């Protein structure tokens, strides 16, 4: 890896956009071809896949792209790798760029794994001497045994990606661009890939990767870009971007499920939650807790027959994943009578072991037997913090 121009970014994007023509008729197809031949812009209907993207990648500052499917991540990688040409803006590259957009993309099914290594290495720009030098290590890394001398068409998809990644390990570019390659293969192979990538990074390599795994993003990259609708929505440290992206993602999932409206009217013939507060805050904004903060859920329940109802309080993630549930009936708690038909409860959840993110507390009214669950009311709360562990909750742990 060359040391020249260390202070300049490896790659600079300035106002990069990419539009794909959408052809309704043969006529517009020909018109667009003619425009390309003349080198003129063509005003056909276009799908704007990327718009006004600008960022730099400094040497050593590995960067991840996050975003939902169809946000434009893969298109952006293609444009940076040089497979697709940007329709606007410019990309300045300094240093060698290696692209791994699809594992095993250059493989021909009729040829053996060993034969395919030859063309793949040539496609990556390796000379015959370099290829010979790397071939044993590639075969060793792929670890697919005697299959290496079988035609690739007889390979399982797992073996194809193993060999595909193995070929890529022969590369040591200044910037390695990979698209979702870590989501393939079995656990042990993924670990092997990660180990190789960490070695590559430790030796001064820089990566631009695209992944749906926030774990990989945080583990391998210092920076992240959140791509949404073909634009950069957020750019910053990997921890920050992934947290905000996940919160947004959860919220979107929650909206998709259409939150139940709170049962509103007083009275009525069924048990229902009349009111609910978190930490006694009368606000429409989500309550924000620190890590290991205390959550107090209070509320009132209407009882149509004035018998003492039961109550269940649950915590779920914003996307609906259940976290925990507490039942008055199991704990032997009896609700306090405030007035005829109205009972009150108060639940304290101290030192919440939840990881930073968005959550929802739900109160479910239940009949006095604790058998049936009626309408519920829910309120959102957020846990703020810098914790980088993954999952939902923080387990007490110690290493030794």
């Amino acid at each position: 890896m060359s040391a020249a121009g260390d202070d300049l970014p490896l790659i600079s994007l300035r106002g990069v956009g990419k539009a794909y023509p959408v052809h309704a008729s043969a006529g517009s197809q020909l018109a667009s071809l003619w425009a390309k031949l003349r080198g003129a812009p063509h005003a056909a209907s276009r799908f704007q896949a990327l718009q006004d993207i600008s960022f730099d990648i400094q040497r050593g500052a590995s960067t991840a792209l996050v975003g939902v499917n169809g946000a434009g991540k893969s298109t952006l990688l293609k444009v940076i790798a040089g497979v697709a040409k940007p329709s606007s803006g410019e990309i300045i590259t300094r240093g060698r760029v290696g692209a791994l957009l699809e594992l095993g993309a250059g493989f021909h099914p009729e040829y053996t794994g060993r034969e395919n290594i030859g063309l793949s290495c040539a496609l990556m720009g390796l000379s015959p001497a370099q290829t010979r030098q790397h071939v044993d290590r590639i075969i060793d890394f792929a670890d697919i045994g005697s299959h290496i001398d079988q035609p690739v068409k007889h390979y399982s998809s797992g073996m194809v990606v193993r060999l595909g990644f193995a070929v890529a390990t022969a590369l040591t570019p200044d910037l390695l661009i990979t698209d979702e390659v870590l989501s393939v293969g079995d656990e042990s192979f993924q670990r092997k890939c990660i180990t190789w990538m960490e070695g590559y990074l430790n030796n001064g390599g820089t990566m631009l990767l695209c992944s749906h795994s926030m774990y990989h993003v945080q583990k391998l990259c210092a920076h992240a870009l959140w791509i949404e609708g073909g634009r950069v929505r957020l750019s910053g440290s990997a921890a920050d971007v992934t947290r905000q992206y996940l919160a947004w993602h959860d919220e979107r999932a929650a909206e998709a499920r259409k939150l139940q409206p709170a049962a509103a009217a007083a009275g009525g013939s069924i048990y229902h939650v009349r009111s609910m507060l978190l930490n006694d805050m009368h606000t429409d904004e989500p309550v924000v807790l620190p890590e290991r903060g205390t959550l107090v859920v209070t509320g009132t329940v209407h009882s149509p027959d004035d018998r003492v109802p039961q109550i269940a309080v649950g915590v779920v993630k914003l996307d609906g994943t259940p976290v925990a549930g507490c039942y008055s009936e199991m704990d032997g708690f009896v609700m306090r009578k405030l007035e005829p038909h109205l009972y009150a409860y108060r639940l304290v959840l101290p030192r919440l072991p939840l990881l930073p993110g968005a959550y929802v507390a739900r109160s479910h009214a239940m009949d006095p037997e604790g058998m049936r669950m009626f309408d519920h009311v829910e309120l959102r709360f957020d846990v703020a913090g810098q914790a980088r562990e993954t999952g939902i909750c923080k387990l007490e742990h110690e290493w030794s």
Partner: protein
Amino acid sequence: MNDNSSWWLFVRFAQREVSNRFAGSLLGGLWALLHPLALLLTYNFVFTSVMRVRPPPDTTVPFLVFLALALWPWLVFADSLSRGTLSVVGNAALVKKIPFAHELVVYAAVAASFALQVAGFVVVLLFVTFSGHELHWTGLPLVVYCLLALACLATGLALLLSALQVFVRDVEQGLAPVLGIVFYLCPIVYTMTMVPDWLRPWVWLNPVAVLIEGVRSALLKGHAWPGQMEALAGLACIGVLVLGWLVFRRLSPHFEEAL
């Protein structure tokens, strides 16, 4: 990517192109020879046995030999062109996923095809010689010149058509019938002397006709060096090559959009 690795990639592509041709077939490389031989025998059956075409007046060799000397140069051209035209679309998976100089697959397809057909031509020439028919080996420089010019033309057209084929898939559909027509517009099953005087200048406008006739007259009459016609045809071929290259360069960054 430097020049060296481009060259190496070209060699790899060309090797693969040759082995792709025969991958999985039992007779392998023999097919490169069997197919034109069958074609040759069919034409011979039609023209000498059925239609009883007399050997062309200004030649001393049998019709079969006369035909073979022009049929192979035609196959060199037509096969290279059709393989080259399909090369970019045929390698769509690579073009979409891996950055490399796309023209290499066209060069490789043309070169592989050219090499196979020329090898077949050499076998045929040896066969003709050993079966007792005198060929003028002094004409070899002109033969080489004409074949190289045909290679230029095929490469230029293949660059042009393979790039257009990415955007307009009708190119492939149109190419086969056009090649079928051009075959009969070239002096392959006839000689230029048989063409009516008023029509002849029009036939000569076709560089393929000039170059094929060049190969045949070199081997039958011993013309060693390109004449005015062959020189002009050669220039036309280079012109087409440049045009094809320019169009390809213009369109190749957009391939990914259409594949």
